[in-house]
C-alpha cells in the first residue's frame, strides 16, 4: 500500500462551460474507507466536479490523484480502470436490457458471444457479498426505482471499483429504502470501499457522512470538515451563504367550497399497468392539499387524469363539471391550471419565445386572440408585465425558452398558469431542481394562490415542502390514498409508514 491515506485528491480543479465557471479551483480529498458528503445547492457544481472524477468531463486546470498517483482521465473507461465508479442520479440503465446485460455493458468480457447464464451467476455472487438483491434476468423496465439503483451500484462494484461516487442517491427513495441504502453504504465501507455522496439534504449528511465538502456557486466553502458536531443550520449557511428560513410563512385560513371532487378514479400508466386504483379525494377553494409519496406511485397519473392528459375510469368533478376523459381543453376551460412535472418536455416550447410561451393557454381568447388571429402586440406587452412581476431573468421577452435557467423557466410557467386566474391549480414537483432562492419564490407564489381562493393540489416528493405549505396531506401508495392527515399536527413517522403501504386506519 502507498503511504498516503487518501483514495482521491482533487486539487485546484477548474471547469469552464461556455459562459459559466462551473468549478473554480475546487479541492476535495477522500480518505480510504470513509463516507464523504459533497454538499451544495442545485447548480453549485457538485455534479460537474464528480463528472470530472468519473472521466465524463475534462478539467481546464487542476490535478487529480488516485491513491497518491496523478492521473488523467480521457473517458469513463479510464476512470473505471482506476477503480472510480459513478452511480448517476438519473439512472444510466438501458431499459430494454436485462440486469446482467446492463452490468456487462462496456466491458471487454465476454469476448464476443455472450453466455448470459454464466454471468447471471457471477452477478448473484456479487449480490450476496454486498446484500444487493435483484433478479439478474429481469429487464430494467420491470424493476422498481430502488432495484434499479441496486443495479447501478452492482454495475460499478462488478468493475472492481473501490471509489464510489453516488449522485443524490436518496432523492428517489422511500424512507425505508433510504435506510437500506445507508446500511449498504456502511457495509461497502466496511469492506474497504470509499464513498463520495452528493446531496442537498442536510439531515442525511449529518446522519451518514464522516466528512463534508461544501460547494457554493462553483467555489469551495468548506473543504473536508468533519461532520461530527455540525448542525443542519451550519451546513445550510455554508451552502447558501446566509441564514436560511426553513419554512415560509403561512396564514391561517378556513377552506371554502369544494372545487375538485374525485370518486373511484382508476387509470393505467404508459406500460398498461394500473397506476391509480379507485382513488377518491376532495379539495376546497383556498386550500392546499399535498400529495406525498415515493416517486412512481401514481402521482404523475393523478395530475394527468385531472388535466385531461390521460384517460381514466370514475368521476372527476371540477366546480361540478365532469372533466374525466375529456380533452385537456375542457379542464382548461373549467379553470384548471397545471404546473407540469416536466417543465421542458411538457410545460414549455423550447424554441419559442417567452411571449409565445406565456400565451399557450389563452391564445384563442380575449384579449390575446379572437379565435382567428393573435394580437402579438398585446401578448408582448403582457409578457413584459409578467416578466417584471415574476422577476424572470432574461434579456427580453423574445428570448427563447430553452435559453432560460430552470428557475426562470418555472417562473414563466407559473406566471402563465396564474395569469389565467385558475380555480384549481395542479402543481407537480414545482420546486424540483431549483436553487433555494427560486424555491422560496415559487412557494410564496403557491401560498398567494391559496390566499386568493384557488384550490391547490401540490404533488411533491419533498416532505418538508409539503409540511410547510399544505393544509392537509394525503399519502399515495400504489395508486391509492393511504390516508389524509392535517399538516399542522402531522406525525412524520406515520406519513413514512403510509408511504410504504400502511393504511392510516391500521396505524
Amino acid at each position: 500500500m502507498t503511504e498516503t491515506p487518501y483514495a482521491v485528491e482533487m486539487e485546484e480543479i477548474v471547469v469552464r462551460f461556455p459562459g459559466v465557471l462551473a468549478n473554480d479551483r475546487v479541492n476535495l480529498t477522500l480518505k480510504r474507507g470513509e463516507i464523504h458528503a459533497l454538499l451544495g445547492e442545485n447548480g453549485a457544481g457538485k455534479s460537474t466536479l464528480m463528472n470530472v472524477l468519473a472521466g465524463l468531463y475534462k478539467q481546464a486546470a487542476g490535478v487529480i490523484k488516485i491513491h497518491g498517483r496523478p492521473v488523467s482521465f480521457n473517458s469513463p473507461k479510464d476512470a473505471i480502470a482506476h477503480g472510480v465508479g459513478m452511480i448517476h442520479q438519473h439512472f444510466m440503465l438501458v431499459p430494454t436490457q436485462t440486469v446482467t446485460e446492463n452490468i456487462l455493458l462496456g466491458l471487454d468480457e465476454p469476448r464476443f458471444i455472450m453466455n448470459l447464464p454464466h454471468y447471471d451467476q457471477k452477478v448473484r455472487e456479487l449480490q450476496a457479498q454486498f446484500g444487493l438483491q435483484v433478479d439478474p434476468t429481469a429487464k430494467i423496465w420491470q424493476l422498481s426505482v430502488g432495484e434499479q439503483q441496486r443495479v447501478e451500484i452492482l454495475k460499478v462494484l462488478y468493475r472492481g471499483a473501490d471509489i464510489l461516487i453516488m449522485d443524490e442517491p436518496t432523492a428517489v427513495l422511500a424512507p425505508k429504502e433510504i435506510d437500506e441504502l445507508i446500511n449498504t453504504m456502511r457495509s461497502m465501507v466496511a469492506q474497504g470501499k470509499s464513498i463520495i455522496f452528493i446531496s442537498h439534504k442536510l439531515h442525511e449528511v449529518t446522519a451518514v457522512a464522516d466528512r463534508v465538502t461544501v460547494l457554493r456557486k462553483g467555489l469551495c466553502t468548506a473543504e473536508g470538515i468533519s461532520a461530527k458536531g455540525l448542525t443542519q443550520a451550519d451546513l445550510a449557511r455554508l451552502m447558501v451563504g446566509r441564514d436560511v428560513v426553513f419554512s415560509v410563512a403561512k396564514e391561517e385560513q378556513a377552506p371554502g367550497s369544494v372545487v375538485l371532487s374525485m370518486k373511484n378514479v382508476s387509470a393505467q400508466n404508459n406500460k398498461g399497468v394500473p397506476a391509480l386504483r379507485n382513488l377518491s379525494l376532495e379539495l376546497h377553494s383556498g386550500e392546499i392539499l399535498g400529495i406525498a409519496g415515493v416517486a412512481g406511485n401514481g402521482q404523475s397519473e393523478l395530475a394527468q387524469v385531472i388535466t385531461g392528459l390521460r384517460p381514466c375510469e370514475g368521476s372527476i368533478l371540477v366546480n361540478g363539471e365532469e372533466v374525466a376523459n375529456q380533452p385537456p381543453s375542457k379542464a382548461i376551460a373549467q379553470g384548471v391550471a397545471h404546473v407540469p412535472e416536466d417543465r421542458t418536455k411538457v410545460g414549455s416550447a423550447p424554441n419559442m419565445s417567452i411571449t409565445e410561451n406565456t400565451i399557450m393557454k389563452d391564445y384563442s381568447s380575449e384579449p390575446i386572440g379572437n379565435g382567428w388571429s393573435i394580437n402579438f402586440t398585446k401578448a408582448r406587452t403582457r409578457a413584459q408585465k409578467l416578466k417584471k412581476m415574476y422577476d424572470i431573468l432574461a434579456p427580453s421577452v423574445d428570448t427563447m425558452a430553452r435559453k432560460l435557467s430552470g428557475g426562470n423557466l418555472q417562473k414563466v410557467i407559473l406566471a402563465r398558469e396564474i395569469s389565467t386566474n385558475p380555480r384549481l391549480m395542479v402543481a407537480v414537483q414545482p420546486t424540483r431542481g431549483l436553487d433555494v432562492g427560486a424555491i422560496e419564490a415559487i412557494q410564496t407564489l403557491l401560498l398567494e394562490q391559496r390566499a386568493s381562493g384557488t384550490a391547490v393540489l401540490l404533488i411533491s416528493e419533498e416532505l418538508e415542502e409539503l409540511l410547510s405549505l399544505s393544509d392537509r396531506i394525503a399519502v399515495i401508495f400504489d395508486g391509492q390514498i393511504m390516508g389524509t392527515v392535517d399538516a399542522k399536527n402531522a406525525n412524520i413517522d406515520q406519513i413514512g409508514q403510509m408511504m410504504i403501504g400502511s393504511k392510516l386506519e391500521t396505524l
Partner: protein
Amino acid sequence: MTTIAPSKRFQLPYTISLEKRVEDYPKWFPPAITIGAVLIAFLISGIILKLIGGEPLRVASFFYEATFGSWAVFSDTLVKATPLIMVGLACAIAFRMKLWNIGAEGQFYLGAFAASLVVLVPLVPPESPKVVIIGAMIIMGMIGGAVWGFIPGFLKARFQVNEIITTLMLNYIAISWNNFWIFDRWSDAGFQMTPTFDKSAWLPRLADYAREYKMFSGITLHLGVVFGIIAAGIMWWILERSSWGYEIKLIGDNPNAAKYAGINIARNIVLVMMVSGALAGLAGMSEVTGVVHRLQERISPGYGFTGIIVAWLAKLNPFTVILVSILFGALIVAGREIQPSGLALMLQGFILFMIISSDVLLRYKVRLTRQTA
C-alpha cells in the same frame, strides 16, 4: 459541449472544437451562412463536373444565359418557379409542424388529374365562360391534392403510421394512377397524353396580350405565378399571425406542450396534411392549365421533391420561398439542357446538405486552438 478531439496518434497542429453559442449572433449572420453554404455546394458540384471531364465555367455561363440572360428566358425561369412556390409553401406549412410530407409530388399529380377532370369528363359545360372553367379547375385541383394529403394524415392521426413512408409510397401510386387514365382512357391517338384542352381552360399568359403590348410577345409567364404570390401572402398570415399558425408552430416545437395546452393534435395533423396537399394540388392545376394545357406523362420534373429543398432553404418562411423558388426554377430550366442529366439533382442534394450542415454554425462557435503539448 462537444469536442471533436483528435486521436492521440495523429496529432494535428490545431484542435477544432465546437463550443455552444451563448450570446446571440448578429442579424446578418444566418443569411450570410446560408448564401455561403449554397456557394460551397456550387463549388463542390463544379469540382465533380471538372473531374468527370466537364467544363464547369462554361456550364456556369450557359446556366446564366439560359435562365436570366433575357426577358424571354427569365420568364421561362419564372414559369418553372411558379409550381415550386406553391409546392414549397405546401412543404413549409407541413414542416412547421414537423410533419414530413414528402408526398407533394403525388399531390401535384392528383391536383393535375382532378383539375383535368373538369375539362375531360367534363364537369362543367365546355361552353361555360373561362372564369367558371378556371374556377372549377382551381377547386378541383385543390381537392385532388387535399384528398391525397388526407390519406397519410388520417393514417398518422389514427394509427400513428409514419407519414414519411406513406407520403412517398403515395407518390408512386399517384403516378401510376395518372398513367392509367392517360394511356387507357384519354389517350390522344395512342400518345402518352390527353388531347390539348380548349383555350377556355388555359390560364391567361402575358403572351396573350402581345398584340396590345409588343414587349410581351413570346413571354410565357402565366397567371399561376399570381396564385403562388397570393398563396404566400395567405400562408404568411396563417403561420405568423393566426391562432392556427400558433398551434402548428407549438405542435412542431413540442407536441407534448401542445397537448397540454389543449390543442387537438390529431385534427391538426389531418388539416395540415390536407392544406399542404391542396397547395401542391394547386401547383399541379397551374401547370396543367398554364403550361402544358393537357394531362400528360411526367408532367412534373420532380417539383414535389425540389419543393422540399425550397422550403428548407427558405427556412420555412413563405416570402423567402418565392425567392428560393426562382433560383431553383433557374436550375430546372438549365438542368433540362445541361448534360449529364443528373447534374441539377446532384447540385440540389449538395445544396440541401450544405444548408443543414451550416446550421451547426448558428448553434456552435468553431474554435481553432493551437496544440500546446
